[in-house]
């Protein structure tokens, strides 16, 4: 056993793995029309919303789960899952943080997101989603003064039904694919954002997703609409308790940018990755898609993926408006027995559209990492450009890194560039750093952060430091 492998065994514990002991209201187990009606009913949804769900469910019956992905996993029994689980205390609809169940406040405090203190700090507004419901949203009132709507999806369905009806499912249709369709049928909560014309959102909006209940799937739904000439930066964070059984998280996220609007969407995903033998952990099967609907619009995805037993997602941009821009910056880290099949899709439809993909994959332990990406330039997308850079970093001798770029160019005036590298942190490099006084952890952190620098720089400042630490922690003990 060389020094790299030796230390893989000493992986530190997942520090967000605790369970909040709280009384829940659950839908009966199983995926059927009654479950869907239960969800719709408990949320007092209008009829159109229930119809949307039922339509999706009908469609789902015709669909099969995709199986082309690299990470394989045992078949999921969809009848053996809970589709709705919410803290009982949320039944009384607390009107402010003061009325919120102290156990929930305590949970978020333990996660490093003290909601009450956050409410007093400027700069970041938070929507906190606990299992199937949003438990609190801060700064709502301040934001609404500028016409900015930031609330839970459930509230948006009630209060802003016109916007939701117009845009929900417009980027990810209910017929899309198995998991997206499943989400359309049974989604529970998530965040809704609307930025009115010409407004630059004055603070970071963020959602913190927490899975707590066991045997429960989390099906969140997020919808962000940036009206003409507006700007918003949004960040999501995720954690879950340590459990032996795998849990499914199948979210749908839809972004819509109208003329001259810009959406920056950042993710710091730290779902429970399973133990060091690969037992337990979250299946993170998420559909994220942004539509640059208007001219000169821009959507930028930044993701730092360190958690989950399996990460399977391709945050994508449909560049429909002329001159629109899509960006994807990703750091994905797998350790122990984690697996990831992730990347992006850039669909160029409009003229002069540009996309940029910077992907950094780091694999350690026995893990396996796949970058899979599609660049598709349509016949009428004149003068479009794509630049892709995929770098993989391996640590140790038992992990894998793979890159599969799909490139389709139907336009002779367009240009596509693809660069890829694979490298390995060597014992020699570590020895060199140590000779200069750095210990193993410092050396790894320096090398890995250097490797990820281009992506870390894209994160909002408040989160860049956190993400940098997370990158260090995820690999802690993976190299000696």
């Amino acid at each position, binding site marked *: 056993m060389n*020094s790299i492998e030796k230390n893989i065994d000493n992986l530190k514990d997942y520090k967000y793995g605790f369970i909040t002991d709280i009384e829940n209201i659950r839908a009966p187990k199983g995926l059927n029309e009654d479950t869907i009606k239960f969800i719709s009913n408990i949320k007092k949804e209008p009829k159109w919303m229930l119809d949307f769900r039922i339509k999706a469910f009908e469609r789902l019956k015709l669909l099969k789960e995709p199986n082309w992905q690299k990470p394989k996993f045992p078949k999921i029994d969809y009848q053996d899952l809970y589709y709705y689980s919410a803290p009982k205390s949320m039944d009384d609809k607390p009107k402010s943080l003061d009325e919120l169940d102290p156990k929930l406040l305590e949970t978020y405090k333990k996660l490093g997101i003290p909601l009450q203190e956050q409410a007093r700090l400027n700069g970041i507004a938070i929507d906190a989603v606990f299992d199937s419901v949003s438990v609190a949203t801060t700064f709502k009132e301040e934001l609404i003064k500028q016409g900015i709507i930031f609330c839970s999806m459930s509230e948006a369905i009630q209060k802003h039904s016109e916007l939701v009806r117009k845009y929900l499912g417009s980027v990810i249709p209910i017929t899309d694919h198995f998991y997206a369709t499943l989400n359309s049928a049974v989604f529970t909560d998530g965040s809704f954002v609307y930025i009115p014309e010409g407004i630059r959102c004055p603070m970071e909006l963020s959602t913190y997703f927490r899975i707590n209940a066991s045997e429960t799937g989390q099906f969140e739904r997020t919808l962000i609409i940036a009206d003409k000439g507006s700007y918003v930066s949004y960040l999501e964070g995720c954690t879950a308790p340590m459990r032996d059984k795998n849990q499914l998280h199948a979210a749908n996220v839809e972004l819509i940018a109208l003329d001259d609007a810009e959406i920056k969407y950042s993710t710091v995903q730290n779902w429970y990755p399973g133990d060091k033998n690969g037992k337990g952990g979250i299946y993170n099967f998420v559909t994220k898609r942004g539509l640059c609907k208007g001219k000169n619009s821009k959507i930028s995805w930044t993701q730092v993926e360190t958690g989950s037993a399996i990460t399977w997602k391709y945050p994508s941009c449909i560049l429909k408006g002329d001159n629109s821009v899509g960006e994807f910056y990703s750091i994905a880290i797998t350790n122990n027995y984690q697996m990831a099949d992730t990347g992006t899709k850039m669909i160029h439809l409009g003229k002069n559209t540009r996309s940029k993909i910077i992907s950094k994959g780091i694999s350690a332990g026995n893990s396996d990492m796949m970058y899979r990406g599609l660049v598709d330039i349509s016949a009428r997308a004149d003068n479009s450009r794509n630049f892709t850079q995929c770098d993989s970093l391996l640590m140790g001798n038992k992990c894998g890194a793979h890159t599969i770029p799909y490139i389709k160019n139907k336009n002779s005036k367009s240009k596509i560039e693809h660069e890829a590298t694979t490298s390995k942190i060597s014992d*020699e490099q570590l020895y060199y*750093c*140590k*000779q*200069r*006084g*750095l*210990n193993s952890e410092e050396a790894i952190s*320096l090398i890995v952060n250097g490797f990820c620098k281009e992506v870390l720089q894209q994160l909002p400042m408040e989160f860049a430091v956190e993400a940098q630490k997370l990158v260090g922690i995820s690999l802690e003990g993976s190299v000696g």
Partner: protein
Amino acid sequence: MLSIKNLRAKIDNKEILKGLNLNINPGEVHAIMGPNGSGKSTLSNILTGKKGYEIEGEVTFEKEDLLKLEPEERAHKGIFLAFQYPLEIPGVNTNIFLKTSINAIKKARGEKELDAIEFLKLIKKKSADLKFDEKILSRQLNVGFSGGEKKKNEILQMSILNPKLAILDETDSGLDIDALRVVSEGVNTLRNQNNAFLIITHYQRLLDYVIPDYVHVLKNGQIIKSGGPELAKNLEKLGYKDFN
């Protein structure tokens, strides 16, 4: 300062060092010369704690058992190695590497770490002293550096870290005259009564610029002859063959 007694080292069951003895006192410059495969690089690896060797014998540094320490602990004690083949570390800015390095050492010694401005001042002064092009420092560590730039970068690191014992492993190999001068000036500026140098080299020419106190000939894993600077000159004339 450094005392090596009957040092034996094996790698993959092959014995490379076969009972080596050496004493280095503060203020001394020692040169070790020897043919290829005589164990010169093995010696520098063992002194700095590289893993993979089976070691017998005794090595003390300032009266402390050196062999028990991790590589970084040895660096904290003031042992520096200018690598024969400096490693490339993509993505890591040279400046940041240097700052992390000096602060890791300061931290381990319980000294105050340098802030960005103090570090910048130090590095500006040291690069000017060595006529080192500062632009290189904003590039990724050793990536795309020429052979000479890599070696000069090692010497810059040495002068910034100001070690008690500096080991130069064939730092002069492959250098042109100008780079050779930079390297030797680096050593000569740093040289004082409290530190020591161990210069491993194939050639006499570096020793024209850095005058050693002692020259040792290493062959078949043992020091077979020691002497003053004139020994290097004789060696250059006669070759290693006659030193049996």
